[in-house]
């Protein structure tokens, strides 16, 4: 695969195409690619999932360990989200200390999950103020064909939903013993992240890598639903270009519909 940076003329072409609402793969501007989900892809993980969005593929695993609570949340378990942009996934990921994308990705997923209140961290205390469960969500892109963020968030949610708490024998965890207790997840809340990308003056969703390379801004929204009310839990804009207020309003109109659509796709794919 190519590590060649996108050329000026292709960028121009993509700009024109998006203005005319055309994409190379024939999709609409706000259409997501085919979603494939596989649960439990690693028996050694407490929970895991593989998510494919078109050719983008991400593996997410959840591991539980015992740790100390953070000083400012002594009555809660811990949640740590990390992502390793393996050089495996793209000729653009070099080995070594993480670049900005590597730092951003796990934080975007973290906030979408944490701020939604999906996990009741207060139920993860083992010994008050001393010992709590720490949830590690580890994200591994396997093939980057654009929009790793959204694919990773879906992967994290699915992995959490099929996570079983390991058996605690006294002070140690017996990982091998069969487990059945799920995580304390608040029923009905399942956040996803929906990232809008911008090329020129066009907004769109779920880019391929080629389209993503032509973008000059992105805004990732974490959105969830409690009973009948949808909530935006997080938001982060990246990139140098700006968003206009009418674009923000347009996004607010599209988000709820997309949230429903993607959740339908997730239900079908599971």
């Amino acid at each position: 695969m190519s590590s060649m940076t996108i050329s000026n003329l292709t960028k121009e072409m993509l700009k024109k195409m998006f203005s005319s609402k055309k994409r190379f793969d024939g999709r609409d501007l706000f259409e997501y690619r085919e979603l494939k989900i596989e649960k439990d892809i690693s028996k050694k993980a407490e929970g895991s999932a593989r998510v494919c969005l078109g050719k983008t593929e991400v593996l997410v695993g959840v591991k539980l360990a015992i740790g100390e609570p953070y000083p400012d949340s002594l009555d809660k378990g811990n949640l740590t989200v990390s992502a390793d942009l393996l050089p495996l996934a793209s000729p653009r990921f070099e080995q070594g200390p993480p670049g900005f994308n590597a730092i951003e990705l796990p934080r975007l997923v973290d906030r979408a999950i944490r701020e939604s209140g999906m996990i009741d961290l207060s139920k993860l205390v083992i010994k008050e103020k001393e010992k709590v469960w720490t949830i590690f969500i580890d994200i591994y892109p396997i093939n980057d064909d654009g929009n790793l963020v959204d694919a990773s968030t879906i992967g994290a949610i699915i992995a959490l939903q099929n996570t079983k708490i390991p058996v605690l024998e006294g002070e140690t965890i017996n990982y091998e013993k069969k487990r059945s207790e799920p995580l304390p997840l608040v029923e009905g809340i399942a956040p996803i992240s929906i990232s809008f990308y911008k090329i020129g003056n066009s907004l769109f969703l779920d880019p391929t890598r080629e389209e993503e390379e032509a973008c000059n801004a992105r805004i990732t929204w974490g959105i969830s639903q409690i009973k009948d009310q949808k909530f935006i839990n997080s938001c982060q804009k990246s990139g140098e270009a700006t968003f206009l207020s009418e674009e923000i309003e347009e996004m607010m109109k599209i988000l709820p519909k997309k949230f429903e659509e993607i959740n339908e796709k997730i239900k079908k794919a599971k």
Partner: protein
Amino acid sequence: MEKEKTRDSKEFIRSDGRKWNETRPMIAKVGVIPNADGSAMFAFGDTIAIAAVYGPRQLHPQHMQDPSSGILRCNYDLLSFSVYDRKKPGPSRRSQEISKVTEWALSPVIDLEQFPNTVIDVQIYIIQADAGTRTAGINAASMALAHAGIPMKDLVCSVAVGKLDKQIIVDLTKEEEDFEGGEGPTDFAIAKIANSDEFSLMQLDGKIPPERIKEVISVVKETCAKIYEVQKKALKEAVEKTENS
């Protein structure tokens, strides 16, 4: 696992029902990572490895370039959730050692002198670990290198042979690796050039009398021939898959 002593027997049946010289079910797929120049997945039972090859490509920094030959650079690691005790992201000494011996296992089949100043990057990751991870990794990497069109004189096949007391067994599970009875556990990871009497990886930990090494070599040859067939099939199927996509 029982601490009984076991006698050596060709009729020996293991706890998962396998014969002494049977590998776990092998699964191989080529082309699993579209972005890579070559890629493959290989599994021995519950041990699953994926490999991607990028190259030949530019080697940075420039001072590392070798004007007489290309460089084969292997990186092996476990995904954090591939093992029960979460592995913290980042290379460990074990993964660094395995990366190096993997490179030595694969380089004899590649004519690196055809690619001076370049690097062929091989990335191997273990998704699920149940012993034999480096052998699964080599089998996956071998297919990925071929898939990438790298000129190779042959494929490389790898399997681990061990002992349960005096009983020699092929392709150990973690449980078998940890066997403590009798002479204790032995784990001998071996890689062979598929169609040649050449061994490119040999790593042994345990206790085995020198007279029995010949048996080990013999069963490794038999087993590698089977692995080669699995690898060959996966590579050929990749072409069909592409055409019918």
